[in-house]
């Protein structure tokens, strides 16, 4: 049995950067994914390397910058990610997804399959809501993750009955 995990990456307090956690919450609420670990990983920096250890495949969902319109999906392979230079790290935040993959490769713990399902962000300033373009992309991003999982031999089943996704950071204020 291959060990597979889906990670939602991003900061839920900064607009569209929440799209990673948002997508995995929807995925968990609507689908049963036998044998797959689903993790809202926040902004783990290099700790992502530690989460990779022991996995055969990792599917990541994150907001991306790319030459494309906000809300467009872009899927990247492990090779796509590591072909560029890593960034100079001044603080523990600079080692991002690409550096975590490279670090895992050096340490010999990189999953054979790493796929990044990227959603092009519109706004990443302070706030607990997705912009409309990114919100509209959520179903397609969920579908993309499901197809990545199917390609790995996973058989997703719709959750019956589905539950509401736990998007606690979007809930209203007291009073």
């Amino acid at each position, binding site marked *: 049995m291959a060990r597979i995990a889906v990670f939602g990456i991003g900061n839920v307090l*900064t607009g569209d950067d929440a799209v990673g956690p948002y997508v995995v919450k929807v995925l968990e609420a609507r689908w049963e994914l036998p044998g797959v670990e689903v993790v809202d990983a926040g902004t783990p920096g290099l700790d992502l*390397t530690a989460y990779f250890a022991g996995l055969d495949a990792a599917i990541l969902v994150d*907001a991306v*910058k790319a030459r494309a319109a906000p809300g467009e999906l872009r899927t990247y392979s492990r090779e796509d990610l590591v072909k560029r230079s890593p960034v100079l790290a*001044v603080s523990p935040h600079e080692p*991002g997804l690409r550096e975590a993959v*490279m670090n895992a490769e050096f340490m010999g713990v990189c999953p054979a399959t790493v796929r990044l399902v990227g959603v092009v962000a519109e706004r990443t300033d302070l706030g607990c809501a997705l912009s409309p373009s990114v919100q509209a992309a959520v179903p397609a991003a969920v579908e993309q993750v499901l197809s990545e999982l199917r390609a790995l031999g996973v058989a997703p089943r719709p959750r019956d009955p589905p539950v509401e996704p736990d998007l606690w950071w979007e809930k209203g204020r*007291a009073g």
Partner: protein
Amino acid sequence: MSKLITIDPVTRIEGHLRIDVEVDGGAVKNAWSSGTMWRGIETILQGRDPRDAWIFTQRICGVCTTVHAIASVRSVENALGLEIPLNAQLIRNLIVTAHTLHDHIVHFYQLSALDWVDVTSALKADPVKAAQLAESISSWPGNSKHELAAVKARLEGFVKAGQMGIFTNGYWGHPAMKLSPEVNLLAVAHYLQALEIQRKANMAVAILGSKTPNIQNLAVGGVANAINLDSPAALNMEKLYQVKTLIDEVATFVQQCYLPDVAAIGGFYPDWFKYGAGVTNYLSVPELPLDEKMSKFDIPGGVLWNGKLELAHKLAGWNDDYLKQNVTESIAHAHYDGAWAKGPWEEDDKPKFAGEWKHETPAPDRYTWVKAPRLEGKPVQVGPLACVLVGLASGHEPTTRWATAAIGAVKAIHKIDLTPAHLHSTLGRHAARAIRAAMMAEMAQKQWKLLVENIGKGDTRIWVDPMANLKPGIYKGVGFHEAPRGTLSHWCVIEADKKGMKLKNYQCVVPSTWNAGPRDASGTLGPYEKSLVGNPIADPKLPLEALRTIHSFDPCLACAIHTVDAEGDEIARVKVL
């Protein structure tokens, strides 16, 4: 002829740290530290139920998980005057110590060791000689010649493939690299071994916190870990023993590998015990409360001025009014409207961006989003060094013992005599972090024992209801936590009425703000800035030495936006005019 250098990692992360230095004659003459994004997370909290604040603040930063959660519940509890069941204190203490160990290990091996270690030089190492050297330093079992030969082979394969991967931007062959090939090989081996230890520390946090990276077991009033030794669903003996096994393994690594490594590597760079002192005023707050009233702590707090190893002010507990009366933040050189210096409860931030600061140009009057915290109007340094110095000045036995061990290790390996005065330096900060980690490993073991003893007495209380005796009114509180990067404080103002309570104001004064903050109204430099002045810079195109000093603080501007720049080339922008 002086040159201006900007070190600005062009990352997908907003709000990262940028350093500008003016170099003249091979040394830094002046320096500016800036954070490039407004971190107004506090505004998200206004109007919310204070019992939910910790869930949000925990998300400020995914690297410093747990710390903003701990500080937040303590802040609200302090405002409401709650006493917290002993089990809850001890479970939190265990999470705090395990997280600290994880953080210190990751910082040394993955974020800063490569400032001192030349990975490519390890290719020339003789694994047999390296194993002999290691044996003379420590009894750590991961140093066999077979293990080291395997690491060297892996490194060779990696380099032969023409891919330096994660090491692409390293400073290989830089004249400031001084380790022998054998020590470089040992460091690379331990870099790899540290990953396993990092996972174990994470697992300990996950067992207690129900999850990582974001723990779920906290609550205002205590914790949510039901204690029932006979239930598989609750915190039971089996889970407690899992935690103990993990903590013991991490402790062994810290004491037999991490601390000796810092001594071995540090001794090759004796000059770096002279550079990088900067601001030698220090603040550290009491940590690991041992009773319900929070009147006793396992780690002491206090204030030191001007590098003197004597307590100018002893902080007996979190309710000491000294900090409430003497902490201010200045916005004189930051992107806000106004030029005030106010206490955290009184602050009313109005962000006002003063404009872009072009790389390699003189600093504008307002150059950062980070405020300048001051204690009695003076800059102070926070972090493991502050914690260790306050421990030494307080006569804290485990801190003193591990500091003595570290100084002894440097003498044994390098025949260099260090004193506590050498700790005011770039390498001193690394040494102090390792000393603190060794001390914290003992503390973790101690908290575990206290928790098991207390449960053994039949006490299973974990929570008090903050709403039970709540009267309408305005409540102010502050939550302190001596986090891995130093003193963290969350300041809250709560309004309670018959219907419930809500937050009127919330401010986080984070460790990296104390250290990375800018000049204040009087022009006095912040700790990062001052620590860089006098630093050597051998090659302005590769300002490795500036990174060494900045990394020694373990910077973390808590505002990561991890948008992957999937199609742009990302390199560090280090230009010279």
